[in-house]
């Protein structure tokens, strides 16, 4: 029997805003399968986003959904989680939202290790505003604001998350659709701040400017560059040139923020400092 996505989607809110060939819908379906696998209650699941194409995702999901301001999802979500530690809190957004205007909130959510799962859809561009370069646009790539090629180096989102203290970091791609729900499931199960970067594509504002002839060509690129971490162990640096590691990149058990704060409350109420 086919999987029933409708159970988790708000009636009457489709069609979505995403263009044909966009990977965000694939990510949303992966997220739904993860929620279903874990048996999460919709009314006990908060999905928080910033601004941008990817950040429109919460509107389609039949949960407690919070579409905030540009870049601010992690900060709003921290407030929700502190007030309702029993809720499952998921963050979604794009690369510009999360690593430029929201970069400070992102690294500090990682550092606190607060139990939330952040799904970053990295399509290397600001899509909603028409294709300006983001901190994740590759050097040399064309965007509406890099007509001569992008002079900026790009962030590695996963390394950024690990460096900032996230205790679960994974990467997948929109091509490897069947892996997405598994990564998100593990991320949600992990106690602490989890980051799942999903590489996807914006054919409309990135593909056309960068000489991709079709969505299929962009999808094939994702297929070609992805190397599972296990497979990479057997590869030489030369073989790994231009490749991107996928799967669970980092996992560590560290004290979680809400639990740490519960201890603060215990100490305060016990009169000890």
């Amino acid at each position, binding site marked *: 029997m086919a999987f029933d996505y409708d159970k988790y989607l*708000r009636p009457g*809110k489709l069609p979505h805003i995403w263009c044909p060939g966009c990977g965000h819908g694939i990510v949303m379906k992966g997220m739904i399968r993860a929620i279903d696998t874990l048996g999460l209650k*919709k*009314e*006990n699941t*908060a999905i*928080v986003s910033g601004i941008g194409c990817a950040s429109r995702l*919460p*509107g389609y999901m*039949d*949960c*407690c*959904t*919070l*579409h*905030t*301001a540009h870049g*601010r999802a992690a*900060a*709003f*979500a*921290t*407030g*929700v*989680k*502190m*007030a*309702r530690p*029993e*809720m499952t809190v998921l963050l979604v957004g794009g690369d510009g939202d999360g690593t430029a205007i929201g970069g*400070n*909130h992102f*690294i*500090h959510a990682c550092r606190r290790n607060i139990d939330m799962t952040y799904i970053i859809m990295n399509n290397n561009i600001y899509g909603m505003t028409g294709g300006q370069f983001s901190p994740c646009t590759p050097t040399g790539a064309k965007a509406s604001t890099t007509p001569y090629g992008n002079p900026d180096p790009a962030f590695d989102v996963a390394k950024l998350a690990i460096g900032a203290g996230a205790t679960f970091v994974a990467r997948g791609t929109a091509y490897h659709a069947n892996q997405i729900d598994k990564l998100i499931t593990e991320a949600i199960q992990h106690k602490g701040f989890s980051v799942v970067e999903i590489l996807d594509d914006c054919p409309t504002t990135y593909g056309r400017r960068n000489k991709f002839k079709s969505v299929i060509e962009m999808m094939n690129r994702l297929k070609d560059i992805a190397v599972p971490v296990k497979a990479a162990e057997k590869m030489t640096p030369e073989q790994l040139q231009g490749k991107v590691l996928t799967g669970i990149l980092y996992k560590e058990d560290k004290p979680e923020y809400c639990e740490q*704060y519960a201890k*603060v*409350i215990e*100490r*305060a*109420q016990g009169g000890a400092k």
Partner: protein
Amino acid sequence: MAKKVAFLQGNEAAAHGALYAGCRFFAGYPITPSTEVAEVLSNELPKVGGKFIQMEDEIAAMAAVIGGALGGAKTLTATSGPGLSLKQELIGYACIAEIPCVIYNVMRGGPSTGMPTGPSQSDIMCARWGTHGDHATIALLPASVQECFEMTVQAFNLAEKYRLPVFVMPDEIVGHMRERIEFPEPGEMEVLDRIKPTVPPEQYKPYDTQFGDVPPLASFGSGYKFHVTGLNKLPDGFPTTKADYVQAEEERQIRKVMADVDNIVDFEEYLLDDAEIVVVAFGSTSRSARFAVNEARKQGIKVGMFRIKTVWPFPDKQIKALAGKVKAFITPEMNLGMCTIEVERCAEGKAPVLGIFRVDGEPINPGQILDKMKEVK
């Protein structure tokens, strides 16, 4: 039984007022001259099972406060000028999404870093118009340590009642001075909670105006599923660009406050019955004004004070009524005329408005006000 008393700073009193009002979540960022609020609440909130978090920046603090409020908590942030500038983005969010929360803003010199430890009253317009777009504002101006406590309680009540962010704005003098404070007993001051939905979750709409201009607000995690956005939205919380609807919603969000203005605007009338000159003052400046009025009375000058306690909404009706009766208004303020503009607007040319403005980090002293009274013909 004797009341519990203490010798406290305005900022400390405000923190205790927040606890009295049922605040159980504070998010902030260190900034002079408001940091004492964070320090007190970091100590006191966990004792009552509440939460304190120091965020990575002022914007994040405002965001966390909104998120916490959606989780059902009464939430507070504290800041000062530069922080207030940074928070504006999300103050607008709280306005349009109609999320109750309180912003305690201690006024210091500006613009920009200005004079971090100097007093000022120059955030009046920043509170009113700092965020972009049309919106209603409620802002309270305490003039004593006691009022820092009481107005913080009142601010929570107003935020909960009208579903919007409410400002408490002492100037730095009021925030940092120490005075005797009497704590109200539990139950002595009214404490209001937001109206929760009574409809079952499947029927709930977060902006359903069939329940009036202030729709009930459910909490995340309480069994209700709903959508919140900073976009213009329909009653169910989902975005819309329908012209008629957007216009009506914007107007409702202002009407919910302005239609009840008489219940919101608070003020003090001091020796106004026979006054020919009225000093319109607020915050620490009103303390100099009271002294000046008392001195002037001894000299036979018929003068009184209208003390602004709620600056937004502005006490239009009261100032307009006085304008027909008095020879002049005197408006001392530690800025270059922010409230004076409002008094002039309300005076409608019926009485001159004589401003006394200081932005040098020094308080306005009674002598300056007394001198101005003598200029009135």
